[in-house]
């Protein structure tokens, strides 16, 4: 018998009054995978995570975590989860060790077991030098590391992380991702995370893009990038529109995205004719070729209205 996936959602949706926060999420997350959820503010990322964490009841559809229904088997779901929300949930009046001991007890551990789990979490999180300090004396980065230690303390099978590195400097972001990588490597932990730092989603096995409560794209990052083209041209200046049209006429443009500064054109086919065309184009202030990024995918997938018409493949 095959084991159920870490997450299986079908048509999962939730409204807040007349606002459709999450329309219908279809998602299957195999065990041990790293899945990034991207999308603009208000796209439904947090709502989806709260639904999976059993903190909200769905208005539509269903979701199962390791085969357990998030509505009717909440306790079974919660036993498998480690959660981290956008705001740091560390009690400033308690020391780091006391915060972690509270988390251990909250997850059902008592006595010696709780103390051993706390000692292990302090060691894994590199928090030894800070363990006796009141959490209010720590910097934002260290408080977030305490949060990560808390979320992983009971070795959950699934980590749901809502913007785990928001507001952190690169050094602390790196520390957090290294802890999470180790969790995956050593324990096969499944991780579902949201972020606005698109580079953080590059190593993900799968990226889910949400916009206005709907899934607008989901696939492996490589395949999502390949949909836009083999390379991305950034074109700026008064002549950008004319050059973009010419590239389209050449048959080299798979995707055209309008940005505040000009155009991004997803290119396919041989490079030389494109470079030649751009070299002779008048009034082009900047023409640069670079690999397609997840940021391009994000813009192409999450724009709405008039912008969307220009974001679709050419």
């Amino acid at each position, binding site marked *: 018998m095959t084991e159920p996936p870490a997450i299986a959602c079908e048509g999962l949706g939730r409204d807040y*009054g007349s606002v459709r*926060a999450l329309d219908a999420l279809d998602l299957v997350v195999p065990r041990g995978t790293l899945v990034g959820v991207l999308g603009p503010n208000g796209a439904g990322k947090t709502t989806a995570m709260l639904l999976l*964490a059993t*903190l909200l009841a769905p208005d539509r559809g269903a979701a199962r975590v390791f085969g357990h229904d998030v509505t009717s088997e909440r306790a079974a779901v919660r036993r498998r989860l480690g959660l981290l929300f956008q*705001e*740091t949930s560390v009690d400033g009046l308690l020391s780091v060790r006391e915060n972690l001991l509270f988390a251990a*007890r909250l*997850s059902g551990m008592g006595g010696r077991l709780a103390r051993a789990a706390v000692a292990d979490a302090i060691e894994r999180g590199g928090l030894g030098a800070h363990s006796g300090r009141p959490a209010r004396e720590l910097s934002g980065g260290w408080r977030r590391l305490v949060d990560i230690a808390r979320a992983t303390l009971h070795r959950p099978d699934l980590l749901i992380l809502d913007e785990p590195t928001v507001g952190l400097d690169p050094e602390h972001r790196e520390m957090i991702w290294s802890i999470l990588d180790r969790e995956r490597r050593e324990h096969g932990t499944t991780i579902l995370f949201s972020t606005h730092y698109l580079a953080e989603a590059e190593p993900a096995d799968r990226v889910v893009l949400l916009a206005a409560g709907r899934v607008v794209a989901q696939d492996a990052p490589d395949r999502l990038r390949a949909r836009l083209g083999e390379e991305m041209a950034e074109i700026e200046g008064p002549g950008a529109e004319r050059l973009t049209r010419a590239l389209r006429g050449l048959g080299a443009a798979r995707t055209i995205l309008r940005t505040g500064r000009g155009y991004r054109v997803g290119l396919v086919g041989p490079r030389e004719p494109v470079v030649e065309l751009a070299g002779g184009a008048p009034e082009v202030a900047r023409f640069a070729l670079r690999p397609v990024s997840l940021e391009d995918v994000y813009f192409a997938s999450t724009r709405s209205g008039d912008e969307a018409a220009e974001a679709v493949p050419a």
Partner: protein
Amino acid sequence: MSAWSAVYGIVARDLTRTTRQTSRLLGGVARPFMWLLLVGTGYNAIARLEGGLPYQAYVFPGVVAMAALFGGMLTAVSTVYDREFGMLRLMLASPAGPGAVLLGRVLAASLVGILQGGIVLAVAPLVVSVTGERWLLALGALAAVAAMSATLGLLVAARLRSVENFAGIINVILFPLLFLSGALYPTAGMPPALRAVARLNPVTYAVDLLRHAFGQAGEFALATDVVVVLGVMLVGFAAGTLLFDPEQRFTARIPRRPPDSAPASP
């Protein structure tokens, strides 16, 4: 086992927080003593109570109730703080569930109420004639009053999203509960309308319970006081469990807000 560990963890955390907020703790203890010493001494000279009971002796059970009421209810601010800063969401998402979270919170707030009321109770021999047996009865009554107050505090905190809101609302609730309870003066002398309100006030029965414990004449039968105090506590706890349900299955008609629209966090 799992749920009890969570309850223990919540109680331990709340008590640690309380002991580290010394100004709040001292303020909670000072309030009843100020009434007992400053107001009580003044009223002793002018108040004439039935049976010739000095005002300070009359007001003593009420002051013990005041300490438990304020200690128990004001501790609920921790719940609002935890909601504002996201900790409550984590607690509700723990395997123990909302029932264990509420039980932990009620126990912790009750202990704070018992601690503050117990300090007042410790000076009872200086103010009222009290035997060891009466003192123990009063301690039991204090525990029941503190638990009821803790439950009422959680009900107030159940839907509030900011500490500022709690601070604004709790005083509007606490003072009528205290002044219309017979804690500080007999309800018999009140206008009929206010007396009727006092009879609907659960704190009236809590104060009366403490009066019985100290051997003073009560307005109601002892059994009535016990039933009302424990009943309010149990009904309040059940209502709190519904209001704190993270899935909002029972409160779906209350307007729901998107998670990102809360002041800091839901």
